């Protein structure tokens, strides 16, 4: 074989090797390159199955709600974006601790709604009508977010949590794996976390130090692959 022949053979062999590696990786991932999206569904299902009594249909908001064990806050996600009246993903929480801490609800931005002693904060994902292939279930509604609005799902490496972005840096997060929910070898043991961006609330008069039932603390959040330290109002729960 001449020099060019050898080169072509070497390039071909290298290309075959690279293709084989990529094929093996894709096969390992179950044929889906979006491993975070795909595996977050399984993980969310585990959460739903862990506290089935806390998962209910929310007729008013046109979706499903996952209530915190203490009932003070719920994560709500829509069944049908064309039907949901306010937000498609949101937190509904008791306004009392914030009002007591100085909240003037009139000063809240547009993504907040206050009624009947409750605050709702979230975002619209779309307006399209949802057609379920099978039965409409809480998990199917979550899958819809993954499949159609993937950018609202993220993975928080420092916490080993999945999360749904609710707009304006508000989040609902849950442990990727409750069994191994540890970070840097320290048992963190927070299986679900409701997180609020404190800035709009503080701007609306809340004194963060006076809010009861919520932890006002710095937490590390991911922006791309960057880890940033920011303050949040947190309500973490251990489900086990």
């Amino acid at each position, binding site marked *: 074989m001449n020099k060019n022949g050898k080169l072509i053979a070497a390039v071909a062999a290298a290309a075959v090797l*690279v293709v084989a590696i*990529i094929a093996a990786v894709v096969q390992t991932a179950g044929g889906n390159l979006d491993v975070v999206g795909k595996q977050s569904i399984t993980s969310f299902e585990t959460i739903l199955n862990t506290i089935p009594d806390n998962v209910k249909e929310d007729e008013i908001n046109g979706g499903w709600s996952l209530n915190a064990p203490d009932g003070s806050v719920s994560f709500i996600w829509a069944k049908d974006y064309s039907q949901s009246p306010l937000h498609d993903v949101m937190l509904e929480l008791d306004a009392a601790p914030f009002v007591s801490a100085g909240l003037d609800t009139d000063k809240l931005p547009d993504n907040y709604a206050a009624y009947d002693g409750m605050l709702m904060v979230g975002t619209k994902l779309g307006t399209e009508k949802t057609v379920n292939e099978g039965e409409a279930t809480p998990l199917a509604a979550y899958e819809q977010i993954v499949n159609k609005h993937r*950018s609202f799902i*993220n993975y928080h*490496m420092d916490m080993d949590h999945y999360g749904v972005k609710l707009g304006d840096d508000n989040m609902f997060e849950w442990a990727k794996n409750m069994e191994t929910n540890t970070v840097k070898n320290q048992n963190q043991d927070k299986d679900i976390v409701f997180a609020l961006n404190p800035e709009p609330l503080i701007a609306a008069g809340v004194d963060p130090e006076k809010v009861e039932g919520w932890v006002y603390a710095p937490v590390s959040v991911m922006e791309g692959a*960057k880890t940033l330290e920011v303050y949040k109002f947190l309500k973490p729960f251990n489900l086990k």
Partner: protein
Amino acid sequence: MESQILNIRGMTCAACAQRIEKTVRKLSGISQANVNLASEKLFVEYDSSALELSAIKAAVSKIGYEVVEKSENANVTIPIGGMTCAACAKRIEKVVGKLEGVISTSVNFATEKATVTYDPQKVRMSAIRAAIEKAGYKALEVNKADAADEDRVRKQREIKTLWTKFIVSAVFSVPLLYVAMAPMIKFVTLPFPAGIAPMEYPLIYALVELLLVVPVIGVGYKFYTIGFKALFQRSPNMDSLIAIGTTAAVLYSIYNTFQIAEGHFMAVDSLYFESAGVIITLILLGKSLEAVSKGRTSEAIKKLMGLAPKTAIILEDGVEKEIPIDEVEIGDMILVKPGEKIPVDGTVLGGHTAIDESMLTGESMPVDKKEGDQVYAASLNTTGTIQFRAEKIGSDTALAQIIKLVEDAQGSKAPIAQMADIVSGYFVPVVCVIALLSGIAWYIGTAGDLKFALTIFISVLVIACPCALGLATPTAIMVGTGKGAENGILIKGGEALETAHKINTIVFDKTGTITEGKPTVTDVLAIEGVSKDLLLQLTASAEKGSEHPLGQAIVHGAEDAGLTLFATEHFESLTGRGIEAKINGEDILAGNRKLMTERSISLTGMEEASDQLAGEGKTPMYVAINGKLAGIVAVADVVKESSRAAIERLHKMGIEVAMITGDNKRTAEAIAKQVGIDRVLSEVLPQDKSDEVRKLQAEGRKVAMVGDGINDAPALAQADIGIAIGSGTDVAMESADIVLMRSDLMDVPTAINLSKQTIRNIKQNLFWAFGYNVIGIPIAAGLLHLLFNGPLLNPIFAAAAMSLSSVSVLTNALRLKRFKPTTGTR
């Protein structure tokens, strides 16, 4: 013993050079094998009856390096005029192809060029041209660019390939680095495609990195083919370090890609594709810069090689004919017009001109040439037209000899390189062991943090730089000897270069070295009853057979005085004492006091005069006729203009200066006083000069001997450094370690200065090369982190540092190009 220089390709570091030397030295019949990494040449001296050159080449090829053959055949592209169709091209191919010695012919009708490969031993280019013309076509002038120097073209192609590889590599590495680093930059949010965000789409992110690193590995494939081959042959080199380091990074990253695919997303933080890609890119950048710098170290010799003209005008039956330089033969009558270069060495037969020989000797003033004078190839004819007979052609010309001498010097090793050579031999395996041990130690120390351990492992492999060690000495020697050649100072080897800087005593031969070597008759003193003219006439007639400068001076003196010389019946030279001759039946004895004493000739009446002449720096020669003193003929030599300044300069450099001469003490001391000599060694017979040098050495001195004559050869060889000066004889030049092309003594301090600066440069290079590795490797191994919780070295920075270390050594060596000769009379 036979010696050869072989061009070697495929070496990447000092370990490669070591390996080749070791392999070749093992062959039976080899007496010397030195590899110059910078010039990529192997210098071998071997017993051709016991070992064939092909066996040496085979041994080198067997261990994975390429011996680049210099084609014995010549290749020429001749533009053709008068072709009208493809059949014309075929016809030319046919007629040229029929010539004996033509190997192949290819005529391109479209470009109107014939490319001919031929054996110059069998057929001349002029015959090829004649065949084309005879076939009815016009053989136009050969484009000189077509006959470009093979080596230069190869080096340029190599540099171009390296740059292309670097650019291709950078095209993929820059986005790879961006993809890897942009999401991690804390204070600035750089634009980043959401579809490959590492936290949202870690698998896609990993695969994108993998796809970006593959082309980089592709262009850097030689690191792997050479590196692993060397590793498997148990002689790892620099490529092995790069190959192991980057392979570890890529394999670990592929493993983590599979981890991500399995759902372990944290593995996205353990991808090292960008390290591998950027390391290869930076090393390619370093290699490209290194290739450019390496090329510059041999510029001096390339300049010398480019000096010779490509054609010569010969006179055939009175008709001028321009022929290629390769076709000039000994005995050809060559015509050189003003502004043209002398094509070969020879003797002027007609015409008068001034020739600029500065390109050979460094002497800026053109030298007058008339009939009988020697002219040298590559020197420039400035004013008149001359005809000369070709006497030395091809590899026998002075220019070719100088080129060979400089090439040999550049291939030799200085003793100072030995340490670097020893270290280079063990360097790479030791680095591999350090990398492995550091990685294991940190893995254990961090309770199983594989990512941390791998960072250390890769950094140590990548930061270690055997290249800098390998380049430190040869590059400085190449630039130093090249710079010397540019200034007419030919240093014969690394050892001479190194020894010269230690010289603390210099012994100058007097005649022709300190003095012009062209003595003239100054005084003729005759005893009563003998006429001065007769005395001079007899002495000159006796000296006619002598080659000694003093004898020649007396002959010239008599001729200038219009005296006719007698025929000599008998002549005998009495070494170191004088001559004996028989003229017109009379016994003539001319020589020094020792000779007269030996022959029991009374000097009464002349001793005082003799002493007085000697005190004036003249050489008095007693002349006896038929056993009786007849008088004295005194001869004096003019001290060279530069002698005093050069000796003063040497004193300033802390060097003691001695003068050695056969002259009597008084004469010698008078000359010594004129030029500021510290120590005079007078009345020394030629055969005793080397003993005098030995005596000085016995005092613990490092002695340089400067001389120009055959009789200086033993002393030049005995001295620690022999310096042959100016128009010296071939024997003197053969025995010397340093040859000064001019007769200017200022070149002696210049040569010593050049030696000092080159050795200082080598020491700086070695200090940097050793220091870099001694500091770099422990930092890469995490020593600062261990001791002070200091920073760890990212493998990318390690690669950058490694690349820059070689380049910095080369850059430092190139600083020698700014060397300025010692100024004195010039």
